[in-house]
């Protein structure tokens, strides 16, 4: 079943301008198999947008090549290359619809390019608008659509010529989280129903988590790591991968405990880290809601309000710890809702 559809071979890309050279891609090797949803993730400026553009040779690599199915793109003539491109659809962060054409004609555009008859093209366009859920908008112009709707039109347009590959360049980055989710669902559906291989360029790990089967991490022009999403998420090996993975996995948990206490400092040493020691001792976090203490001659004075964890046993342990440290502890009724 593992049948490679995209092979990136030793691809390097250097941008040369009059005063400097930028190595956007350094010797990238990557194989994407038929039916994959392959995420390519990296910080902005990592080179991922350049990489996705080498997949349809919108950006010709300085060295190396890309093989689509069995066609080596670097050996193709301009005309053959255009033919291959009709099989590789692309959607963009800013949708890139023709603003002077209505939705239906936008979807028809790639079919015009391959010379399909108008009546056939319109029929197919209507089918596709149905698939993306925009049938009633066929006469609208892009300026009348929301971002999510524009991306749906772009997806319908992408599917028009029955492509084998769909490239998504930050396709959800201009959308809000709910719309992003809906677009990702649609991409998933397209992948499942039509077996289209999808390559997703993104800087958002959540996108990869949501939809991708595989992921490659690009870090300043290098391919840092690649593999299945589970592998990379459970065992990120490189610093770049760890940085990206931990950005999602280490989300800060909000405290949900309702019990709050006020502690008053009167005689403790300013230099005794009471709260920190308590946290270490009990191995659970507390949330400092208010802290108003100062050091007067080496003695801590003032008060703090702490939000305790939900676990009742832990709460008792913490209160006991504080009382043992000679602090006044006072319960606060419904301080947090």
């Amino acid at each position, binding site marked *: 079943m593992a049948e490679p559809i995209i092979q990136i071979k030793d691809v390097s890309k250097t941008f040369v301008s009059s005063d400097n050279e930028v190595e956007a891609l350094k010797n990238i090797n990557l194989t994407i198999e038929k039916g994959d949803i392959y995420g390519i993730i990296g910080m902005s400026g990592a080179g991922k947008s350049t990489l996705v553009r080498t997949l349809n040779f*919108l950006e010709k690599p300085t060295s190396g090549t890309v093989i689509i199915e069995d066609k080596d793109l670097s050996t193709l003539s301009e005309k053959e290359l255009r*033919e291959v491109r009709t099989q590789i659809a692309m959607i963009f962060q800013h949708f*890139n*619809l*023709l*603003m*002077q054409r209505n939705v239906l004609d936008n979807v028809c555009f790639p079919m*015009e390019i391959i010379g399909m008859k108008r009546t056939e093209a319109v029929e197919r366009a209507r089918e596709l608008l149905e698939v993306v859920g925009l049938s009633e908008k066929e006469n609208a112009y892009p*300026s009348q659509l929301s971002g999510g709707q524009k991306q749906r039109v772009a997806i319908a347009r992408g599917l028009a010529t029955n492509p084998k590959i769909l490239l998504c360049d930050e396709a959800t980055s201009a959308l809000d989280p709910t719309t992003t989710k809906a677009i990702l669902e649609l991409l998933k559906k397209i992948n499942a129903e039509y077996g289209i291989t999808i390559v997703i360029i993104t800087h958002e790990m959540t996108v990869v988590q949501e939809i991708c089967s595989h992921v490659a991490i690009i870090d300043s022009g290098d391919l840092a790591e690649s593999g299945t999403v589970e592998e990379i998420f459970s065992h990120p090996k490189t610093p770049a991968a760890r940085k990206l993975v931990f950005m999602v996995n280490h989300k800060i948990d909000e405290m949900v405990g309702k019990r709050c206490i006020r502690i008053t400092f009167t005689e403790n040493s300013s230099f005794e880290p009471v709260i920190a020691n308590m946290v270490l001792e009990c191995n659970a976090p507390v949330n400092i809601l208010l802290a108003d203490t100062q050091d007067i001659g080496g003695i801590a004075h003032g008060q703090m309000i702490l939000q305790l964890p939900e676990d009742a046993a832990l709460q008792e342990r913490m209160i006991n710890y504080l009382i043992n440290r000679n602090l006044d502890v006072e319960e606060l009724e419904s301080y947090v809702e």
Partner: protein
Amino acid sequence: MWSSAVIKMIAVGVAQTLTMTLVSTIVAYIIGLPLGIALVITADDGLKPNRAVYKILDVIVNITRSIPFIILLILIIPFTRLIVGKAYGTAGTIPPLTLAAAPFIARMVESSLREVDPGVIEAAQSMGASIWTIIFKVMINEARTSLIINATIVLGTVLGYSAMAGTVGGGGLGDIAIRYGYHRYQPDIMLVTVALLVILVQIMQVIGTHIAKRVDRRIN
């Protein structure tokens, strides 16, 4: 003073002005439009960058644009004779007007086409569109509002130039204004012709703006 002869003369003047303006603008577009497209395509960030071609076109356009029209009018008299057989009258003004308008149009077209979102062009490339498809179906179509507004500006400018052609016996309202107002001290006739010129420009402007708005689908 306002004899039927004068009225007839003014009517003929209006017709001559319109003929000069429209004919030379159309011919100038036949030259200027491809030139403008070529400038955009061969520019460094164009679809087929070609520094040499771009530079040559750029220099030609700049040189022609920098010659004052009144000088150009006289400078190309031999060329005008070659084309239309004479260097005076309405026909005699069309070659210089065309030659003056074409590079101006090229620049206007260039700036209109540059306004097209590069992302849309990239999208068309990713679909496998050829350069010609991109030029005609993407660039020109997406820039149509700007192209029409600029054509209106061109018409107004050419109309102004056509009045200048009056100084060399070019015919038209400008010719009448100069002959009667300047040489014969008849400011009333001059005022009428000037008013007519203003009205003509105004009409072109209104029509141009209206069409531009009608074909624009970006705003509702």
